[in-house]
């Protein structure tokens, strides 16, 4: 078997291996968590009431049975894979008996919507500015934008988010600072609802854009800076090809290939949520769900979210691997 079929098979095996190892690793890591979901539930049930110690012990036994936590870790591991292959992560232990899948599916649209949009804006702006800055190295405006982007790059998301929250939520209170949409508004395709979604998503998205744009800018500028010294670019310049054409056809296009890989990986990781930003703006996405799961020892939920994220990244890489030979002839299929 030669050429594309062999390449496809190799990538397919790699794809399944990555998922198997990633998900198995996550399973055993979550089992190492010192947080016990039964004790967390008991704590919630007994924290504020007068509770007979004998009753607490009885409750502990009943919950352990209800949550299905019996059996050795290997038995649980096999049962877990059995459920995953059926697309079922079992019931959430912190929201028993609500299925984990149902919790994820209600949070996923918020995260995917917000992060995909923010990522596309970040990727486009970062690469465009980075490419321009790398090619037109003496342009003052581009130098300035580079300085701003570089200054923002190392600032943690929670600092940027907090500043935006103060500026647009308090000093000039023009944008909502909490939640995904206006309260009591019927979800749907109405203009009011869409406008509300945009309003509530603006600050989280802006935070993600401001924090994320730097890495795309830096890598793109670096790539372009290298390419402009390549022979084919020098030759084109000597041949009198217009600078616009050289930029778009000879430089940016070549530099874009690795950035596309990065984009695919980032799109895959969208499914893991943006924990800090979602927490900061109380955005009802997967990141917030993940944090709740970790704090409550709900390893079914944690496993569900991370498995989803692992599969999504693996799929993204797989797709890129398949597309790469088509767009870059330098990738050998043999």
């Amino acid at each position, binding site marked *: 078997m030669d050429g594309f079929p062999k390449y496809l098979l190799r990538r397919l095996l790699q794809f399944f291996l990555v998922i198997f190892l990633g998900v198995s690793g996550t399973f055993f890591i979550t089992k190492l968590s010192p*947080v016990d979901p039964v004790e967390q539930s008991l704590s919630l049930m007994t924290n504020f*009431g*007068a509770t007979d110690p004998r009753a607490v012990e009885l409750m502990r036994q009943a919950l352990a049975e*209800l949550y299905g936590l019996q059996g050795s870790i290997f038995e649980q591991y096999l049962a877990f894979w059995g459920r995953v292959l059926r697309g079922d992560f079992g019931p959430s232990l912190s929201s028993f008996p609500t299925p984990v899948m149902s919790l994820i599916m209600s949070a996923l649209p918020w995260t995917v919507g917000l992060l995909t949009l923010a990522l596309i804006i970040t990727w486009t702006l970062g690469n465009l500015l980075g490419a321009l800055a790398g090619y037109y190295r003496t342009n003052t405006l581009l130098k300035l934008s580079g300085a701003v982007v570089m200054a923002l790059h190392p600032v943690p998301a929670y600092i940027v988010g907090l500043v935006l929250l103060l500026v647009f*939520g308090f000093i000039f209170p023009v944008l909502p*600072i909490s*939640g995904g949409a206006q309260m009591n508004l019927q979800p749907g395709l109405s203009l009011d609802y869409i406008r509300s979604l945009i309003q509530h998503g603006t600050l989280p998205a802006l935070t993600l854009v401001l924090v994320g744009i730097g890495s795309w800018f830096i890598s793109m500028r670096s790539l372009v800076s290298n390419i402009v010294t390549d022979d084919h670019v020098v030759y084109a310049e000597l041949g009198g090809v217009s600078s616009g054409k050289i930029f778009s056809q000879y430089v940016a296009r070549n530099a874009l290939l690795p950035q596309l890989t990065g984009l695919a990986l980032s799109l895959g990781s969208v499914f893991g949520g943006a924990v800090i930003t979602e927490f900061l703006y109380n955005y*009802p996405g997967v990141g917030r769900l993940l944090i*709740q799961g970790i704090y409550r020892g709900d390893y079914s939920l944690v496993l569900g979210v991370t498995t989803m994220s692992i599969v999504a990244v693996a799929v993204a890489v797989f797709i890129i691997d398949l597309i790469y030979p088509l767009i870059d002839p330098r990738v050998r299929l043999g």
Partner: protein
Amino acid sequence: MLIKKLAAAALAIAASVMPAAAQDFIAGIPRNEALIIQGPAAQNAEWFNLWAPGGGASNNGLQQLTADTFWFVNPEGTGDAAWTNALAADRPQYNDDFTEMTVPLKQGIYWSDGVEFTAEDVVYTVETQIANPGMNWSAPFTINVDSVEATDPYTVVFNLKEPNSRFHTLFTVRWNAAWIMPKHVFETVDDPLTYANNPPVSLSAYEMHSYDSAGNWVIWKLREDWERTSIGMDLESEPDVKYVVYRNAGNPDARVIEQMNHNLDVINDIAPEGMFTIARDAGENSAYWFPGYPFAHPDPTLPSVLFNHQNSKFQDKDVRWALALMIDIRAVAMGSYRGAANLAALSVPPTGTAVVDYYEPMQEWLTSFEIDTGARTIAPYDPTVAQQIAALVKPQWGDDIPDDPAQLAAMFGHGWWKQDIEAANELLEKAGLTKNGNQWLLPDGTPFTIRLMVEGDAIPTLARAGTILAQQWSMQGIQTTVDVAGPTNGQRLGAGDFEAAVYWTVETWGGHPDLSFFLESYHSDFIVEPGAVQPPRNLQRWQDERLDAIIEENRTVSFDSPEVVQLGMDYLKLAVEEMPFIPLMAYNKFAPFDTTYWTGYPSAENPYSASGPFWSNTRYMVVNLEANPNAPGAQAAQ
């Protein structure tokens, strides 16, 4: 040209989207009819079954506004006024040996779907939970109830398996209690443990209006037949609050901003810095438990330094007392609460009726209490600590700080132990410890070190207190490191996986002097081996025959007997003598109210209800609030 068009389109979208402030804050509901309360982020937003363990939605107004049971105790109240007969027509009636409890029920109470509430609902509640292990009150019913019967539609009789003079407390709300289930709803359900109960029928004055499937808010509306509820039938007029919104207002900074923007009327808890910001900037539009500094509302819980009594370091009371005397409580109060702490020398929270039943009557005993340091006898109590803290904060808060000692005691507590390093050193020597340079050594010659566990960011005030205690003990030669447990804090406390910790193991009714609420679980029968999980309370695993005798005696007297207070004092004196844990202060909660739309919130001057929005007593606050006639939109509505 294309760029110009794109820019114009972007500006047009921005212009239509930006003025969020101009819109209704809640679509379709007038702001001046809605009380907005801080709620949780519900993970399972579609779930409204309060009786199954997935009922994480219990803090979203469900138990506070729709559930009901026999009795309520106001944790801030004193005397008879603190007790409310809700579904019950009278106080609990026991037979002589406490093996039978009869509850007469009020008549004329209806579920929100029009079905009458009767004794059959109560019988169904108890029997269903016994039949379904894992339901929230299944275990205590299984242990206590032999049978339950409705002798007529308005009388329930519980036959108990063994004498229990406190059985009624299962149905007595401080924070929550066993809520009555709607029989006519649940009897049609296959499995009450997996039934979401959505939408829930209500037994109290409010019912569900709408909720966010993403878990950020739930809106409750006043029932049209609100008079046909236990809370409604005692009201003189219709409540002003027509809608109650439990909304997750985000992180602590966002909560402060939302209240100052008038989008959050009731905050559950914020850090002192957030509280002081609101007090400084919100002006006339806010109210607090105290009208000025220290603002905070003391919960009936008692943050303390817990010692693990199964650790040999802390088994000698002289060592525990020495550690107490090394503490400069003024520094702890200033560092944790910036002075706004209500200090506690006794092992009950200085709130509600404990002030008049225990703290005030025991001042003389505390002042004359002495301990033998091995070298001399000292009287460690300092009744002037409140005045000392007042002097420390007066430069910042000026006229907010009164001179009257009684007022200062209400604000800062009645007193605490003097820092006495010399006496502490004498006590350590008495306990067989020796000092090498500035390091105390245990009797076996190893350095005396302490790992002091705190939860961390979830309770910042206690984490700060832990840091200051660690500094103070380290300075005196006991190297203390702070151990931040995070989300494992509760589990590690239960498993005894700590040396010392800053947390609470004492909670009281607040509005009733009976201490069985926590003390029952302090009996030595319930202390487990090291490594096994200790039932809630007595996390320090303190064991004492004298304590057992007090607990056993308390079981034989009725809840309302005057002997309860005497037994409570016996426990408190024993706790001072033994110092099994070092009580620090009440858990002070900064819970500011926005008065732009609503007035008449509970306060230290008028403590008619709990103020914390997660406490089920909050319902009494909700129905008593008055619409502010000067609120935006109020004039137009009149």
